[in-house]
Structures are given as structure tokens and as C-alpha cells.
């Protein structure tokens, strides 16, 4: 399965990295690079199509769509990364730990992970913002918590696979500590799986962010975000039916690039994304094995 060579040899991976590089540049310098003020209202230029002055046209307040999309990138992408970071820490660390810390700890963490998987992102996030206050940065904490089970399951499955290997047994017999085994033998092998999951989950988080901002959660109206631009386009479909396709395409291309990158890394490393053999509610406990 594992083929030698850099991930970047695959053409799909190169395109994906190119798209993501553009997104990163927009995240860092989007508002500075925007050709016009993303908040400037122009009553004389409503719903204009693409032109030399407005490359992607104008919206219902005559604001430049291209500038709004560029300026909206930072908030959309950074909040998605925030959620992924939380999910990674909360998921991957217990995913490795449960394998080495005994069956009861393993059982408990698994059930918490299963319980979290019963919540759809949006319901959970909206419920949390109802309880703890509205704000995109706060809203991404529950998204991160819900992303954690995916990281947990992938990391745990990969760790189990490697922790049963003979060289781990040998290291154990030679008196290596659990931490040494994790650091030297497990972490490096599990890393490709974590990378694949991170790419896939970033795509999922980006979709969730876009959807939240589309629903108007966590942002105040003039602030441009990808989902927010889509939402205001929806109100004026009869005047400008083509308008939602621009932010929609931007979201789709970014998500597609992340998925393509995940696929490329998986092809090159033989790592898996989700452990699809296990349903959300596990049926067979004998599959749950512990090394400790």
C-alpha cells in the first residue's frame, strides 16, 4: 500500500496544495489585498455583474463581492482551524492514552466519544451558544468537541494496530517505559492517520463555519464571512440568481482541495480516515481491545 515518493508527486495533491496556498495567503493578507473597501456601500451600483471595476460584481448594497470574499476569508478559516485544533488535542491524546491506560479508562472514554457522536454539529453548537453566549470564537469550541470523536477513533485504531506489533513487545521486554514506546514506536506510525484526519476534519469544520455564519450565528451583519455572503445572496435571488454561486464555489473548491489532499496523503501512506467498520453505537465489544 505504501508507495515511496513525496505526496506532491500526485497531480491532484499539487493542485490541492496550490488552492490551499491561495487560501492561506488570503487568510493572512486578505483584507490588505482586497481591491476595494469590503464595507463601502454604493447605492448606484447594486447587483452588478462582473466588470473590470468589480471583478465578481456587487451585492445588494453595492459592495464589491471580491473584496468581501477576500476580507471574509480570515475569520472563516481561522475559526475552522480553531475547531480542528481543539478536536485534535481532545481526540488524539486520549486516542493514544486509552490503549495504554487499562480497560475501564478505555471503556469510559469510548462511551463519552460515542455519546458525543449522537449530536449533530449544528444542534449542539446552537444549543451551546444559547447557553454560553453568541460569538464565533466561542461557537467553535463545541464544534471542536464534536470533531474530537473522529480523531479519537482514528488515533485509537491506529495506535492499537501498532501497539500490538512485535517490536513493541520486544521493547516492552527490554524494559522500555510506556512513554518511550509511545514516543518512539507509536507516534511516528500514527502520524499519517492524524494528518489525513486533520485535513478531512478541516474540511468538515469549514463547512460548519460557513453554515453557522450562513445562519447568522456568531457574527454581526457588516462583518464579511463566506457563509454570511451566501446568506445575503439568498434574500435577493430574483434580482441576482447567479450571486450565490460565487461564495458557494469558493467554499466547495477549498473543501475539495482539503479532501483531495487527505486522499493523496492516505494513498501515499496507507493511512485510513474513519474506521468505518465500527458503527456509531458499537455492536461488538470484543473488538475493543486494550494493551495494558
Amino acid at each position, binding site marked *: 500500500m505504501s508507495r515511496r515518493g513525496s505526496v506532491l508527486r500526485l497531480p491532484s495533491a499539487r493542485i490541492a496544495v496550490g488552492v490551499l496556498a491561495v487560501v492561506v495567503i488570503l487568510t493572512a493578507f486578505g483584507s490588505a489585498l482586497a481591491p476595494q473597501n469590503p464595507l463601502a456601500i454604493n447605492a448606484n451600483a447594486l447587483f452588478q455583474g462582473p466588470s473590470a471595476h468589480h471583478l465578481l460584481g456587487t451585492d445588494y448594497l453595492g459592495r464589491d463581492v471580491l473584496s468581501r470574499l477576500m476580507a471574509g476569508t480570515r475569520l472563516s478559516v481561522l475559526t475552522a482551524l480553531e475547531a480542528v485544533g481543539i478536536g485534535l488535542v481532545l481526540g488524539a491524546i486520549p486516542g493514544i492514552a486509552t490503549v495504554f491506560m487499562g480497560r475501564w479508562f478505555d471503556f469510559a472514554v469510548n462511551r463519552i466519544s460515542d455519546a458525543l457522536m449522537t449530536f449533530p454539529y449544528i444542534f449542539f453548537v*446552537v444549543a451551546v451558544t444559547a447557553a454560553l453566549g453568541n460569538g464565533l470564537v466561542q461557537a467553535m469550541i463545541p464544534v471542536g468537541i464534536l470533531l474530537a470523536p473522529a480523531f479519537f477513533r482514528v488515533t485509537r485504531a491506529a495506535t492499537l494496530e501498532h501497539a500490538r506489533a512485535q517490536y513493541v513487545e520486544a521493547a516492552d521486554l527490554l524494559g522500555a517505559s510506556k512513554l518511550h514506546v509511545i514516543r518512539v514506536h507509536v507516534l511516528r506510525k500514527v502520524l499519517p492517520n492524524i494528518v489525513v484526519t486533520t485535513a478531512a476534519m478541516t474540511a468538515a469544520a469549514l463547512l460548519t463555519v460557513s453554515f453557522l455564519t450562513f445562519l447568522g450565528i456568531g457574527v454581526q451583519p457588516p462583518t464579511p464571512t463566506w457563509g454570511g455572503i451566501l446568506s445575503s445572496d439568498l434574500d435577493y435571488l430574483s434580482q441576482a440568481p447567479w450571486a450565490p454561486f460565487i461564495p458557494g464555489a469558493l467554499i466547495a473548491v477549498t473543501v475539495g482541495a482539503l479532501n483531495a489532499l487527505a486522499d493523496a496523503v492516505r494513498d501515499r501512506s496507507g493511512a485510513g480516515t474513519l474506521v468505518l467498520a465500527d458503527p456509531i453505537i458499537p455492536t461488538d465489544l470484543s473488538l475493543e481491545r486494550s494493551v495494558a
Partner: protein
Amino acid sequence: MTVISLTRGGTADAAGAPAPRRRRGLRVRVALARIGAGLAVLVPIVFLSSFITYCLGALSNSNPAATILGQDAATPAAVARLDKALGLDHPLVVQYWNWLVQAVHGNLGRSYFTQIPVSQSISQRLPVDLSIAILAVILAVVIGGTAGTVAAIRRGGWFDRGVTAVCSVVSTLPAFVVGIILVVLFAVSVHAFPANGYVGPSAGAGPWLSHILLPSLALSLQVASDIARQLRTSLVQVLDQNYITGARVRGLPYRRILVRHALRNAAGPALVTLGYDFPQMLAGAVAAEAVFSLPGIGQLLLESAETRDIPVVQGLLLVISTFVIVVNLVINTTLNWLYRSGDEVGT
């Protein structure tokens, strides 16, 4: 490496028991062990997810009694009296238990603001989302199942490549974007379907279906592409197995081999995918409601979140997670049935 058995009379016990003389006895024991193991997983999940749901409300620093009474009437004495009436003076775990017991009896409390019972406002709106979600599951299984099966049979052909390409495009499109595209294509440009609103099935099957078809289609596409991809992958593997070749050598009709032997054994991963997608499908239903302005539970959730109407939010989350659990139990049961009869077909 040890195999965990966490249940009373768990699977490991049953397997390790001395071989009983009567097969029937063993079967019953295995079945009981299976139920026991299932409960050992299910019960903690139900309690944990409902506890998380309850805690969300309890952790909010909003003061329910003060909210209900309004700013002027909220004297400390009145707040204390109402706290007692609402049972908010008990410890968190006791409050949770009371809430759960009431919820099991169908009482989810009343809205802080409208005083309408939460169960009533949820049951009023749930049919909208249920019709969309059920139709979406049907569409996803039919579209995805057909596409995946045909792609696997005609492996490497133009249809297979087409399905793969379409799936990778569709998987990048969130339900609300697909919904908007469908509105633009079929409702604004062609006027073939209504762009928004909801009509219950009591108004006739035709109008009802025409109102939910576009939202359901928007929801189903991503799930359909997941199912198609998963089914194609596993069906390709199964079709390479020796028992398929064996069945063909025995001269069984291809259709029968495909349905009884191949699909039955290949359907498992696609079903599991459906189980994973179902929670996100409900989230997608919220998107569909927003795009098609339908009066569903998503709107209720957004409204009550804005006013911080905690009982409504808790009730909704409980109902939704219960749904996810039930659907996944159905899927698990189907998986068990598939695999068990799969053994018999395969040998």
C-alpha cells in the same frame, strides 16, 4: 492483549463456555450475551448524551427564575420561591434525574417565555423535518445504491468514472449550497417547484411531495455520494471473491448472485456510512429549512437559542440525539441480520 468482557455474561464468557450438548441452548446464550453487550454500550451512551444535554442548560449562567419573572418582579424572595417551584434548588444530578424521568413520560417542561409545553411545540414541527429526512434517506439509498452498484458491475467503464467524478464534486458541496442551487434551477428559473413553504400531507400527497422534494434532494445528494462510493468499493471486493465465481460456475442467474450473494455481503459498510451521515443529515435539515423557509425544528432551535429559552433547547437536543440513537440501533440490527444470513449464504 486482552479481550474485554464488560457485561454480565458477556460475549467472551459465552464463547469460552464448555460446548453445550444442545445447540439451541448455546444460541439462546449467545443471543442473551449479545443483548447484554449491546445494553452495556447503549445505556451509558443514553445517560451521557442526555446528561450533556441537561448540563448545557444548567451551565448557562442565565437565571431562569429571573428570566421568567422579568426585571421588575425579580426580587430575591420571588426568585427563591420560583427556584423552589422549578426544582432548581436541588443539586445538579437530582435536577437531571427529575428532568430525565419527566422527559421519559413525555414532559419536557414549558418554555420560559410562551409557557407552551416544549413537547407540544416540538411535535408540531417535527413532521416537517421527519418528512424531509425520511424522503432524503430514501432518495440517498436509491440514488447512491443504484449508482454504486452499477459502477461496481461496470468497473472501469464510463459510468464508473462518471460516478467517481460526480461523487467527488458533490462531496464538497454542503447541503445549503446544494439547496440554493436547486432553488435557483427549479424554483426561480423554471418555476417547476415551490421555492419555499410547507404543506402537510393532509393537503394531499401531490402538494406535500412537491414542497419537500427539493429540500430532500438537497439533503440526500451528499449522503448518496457517500453511499455510492462506499458501496462501489465493497462491492468490487466482494465480486472478486471465490464464492461469487463459484456461484457463477454453478450457473446461478447473475441477478440472483448480485442480490443474494454480493449485495448482501457488500451492504454493511454503506449502511454504517448512512449511520454516520444521519446526524449530519438532521443538521442539513436545519439548512434546508433556512433555505426553503420551512417551519421546522431548526427554526424553533434558532429562535429559542436567541431568546435563551433553555427548556426548549434542551428538549430539542434530547429528541434529536434520541433519534440518532434509534436510527443507529436500527442500522446495527440490520447489520447483524445481514451478516448472520450472509454467513449462511456464503458457506
